[in-house]
């Protein structure tokens, strides 16, 4: 999370026609956008449709993004609009209040919220367990840096200040933490590289 303008360069490259840069942003934000959409839309299939629509709208309108806000904030608003558009097309939808999403206890889990798909629920659970197990085995200083960044949303510079270390050390610790966990995830994820990106 961290710095507000951290996506500036990828957005700039995408605006200049580098499709891979936009794909990198899709990889980065698809789960967060799915979680947001799931506050409005029920059913994993419909959530996924709306997420896809949101990214398509964002790509089509990428030239209009001026960087006045963070890219994720812009994308979030697009996803909100896409979700509301979807709801308006549903004959039995009643929006409560001012476009307020219905708060749902089961909100999110892209692709996991369908009760009839226990295999995917199991896969998600195995991944989450593997990440938590690996996190517990990490050297404390690595786990601390990763948690401050990913969970608490602290920018790299702030983490450096909090821990009293150079920012370069923050970069290295976060990378080492991620890589440690990723390697322990490999047996759970399996060789599906062509299915991820």
């Amino acid at each position, binding site marked *: 999370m*961290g*710095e507000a*303008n*951290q996506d500036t*360069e*990828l957005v700039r*490259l995408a*605006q200049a*026609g*580098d499709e*891979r840069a936009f*794909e*990198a942003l899709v*990889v*980065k934000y*698809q*789960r967060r956008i*799915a*979680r947001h959409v799931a506050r409005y839309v029920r059913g994993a299939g419909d959530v*996924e449709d709306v997420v*896809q629509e949101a*990214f*398509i*709208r964002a*790509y*089509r309108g*990428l030239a*209009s993004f001026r960087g006045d806000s963070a890219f994720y904030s*812009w994308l979030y*608003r*697009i996803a909100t*609009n896409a979700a509301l558009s979807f709801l*308006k097309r549903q004959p039995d939808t009643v929006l409560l209040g001012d476009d307020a999403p219905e708060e749902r206890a089961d909100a999110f*889990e*892209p*692709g*996991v919220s369908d009760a009839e798909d226990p295999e*995917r*629920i199991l*896969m*998600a659970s195995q*991944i*989450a367990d593997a*990440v938590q197990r690996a996190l517990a085995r990490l050297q404390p200083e690595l786990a601390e840096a*990763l948690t401050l960044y990913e*969970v608490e949303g602290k920018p*790299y510079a702030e983490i450096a200040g909090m821990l009293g270390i150079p920012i370069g050390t923050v*970069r290295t610790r*976060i*990378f080492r933490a*991620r*890589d440690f966990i*990723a390697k322990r*995830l490999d047996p759970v*994820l399996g060789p*599906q*590289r062509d*299915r*991820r*990106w």
Partner: protein
Amino acid sequence: MALKASLLLDGQLAPGETKAALDETTADPVLRDRYTVYGLVGDVLRGNSTPDDGYTMRILERMRREGARIEPDYDPLAGDQ
């Protein structure tokens, strides 16, 4: 080189380094995969439990199928479109 994939994910590279890191990451299947898994780790830590089922690829496939392209006059925030 996986360090660069991590820095790319977090926007921690200097402007002049980002394109080179994107080139390296996307050209190497292992680095490309690491980029996705690093992102997955962060999402799981934030509570976004998720299966590994090709969600990203389906987004990209639909974009290609629909011929999505950047449109200079399209405003994605202008309500229903």
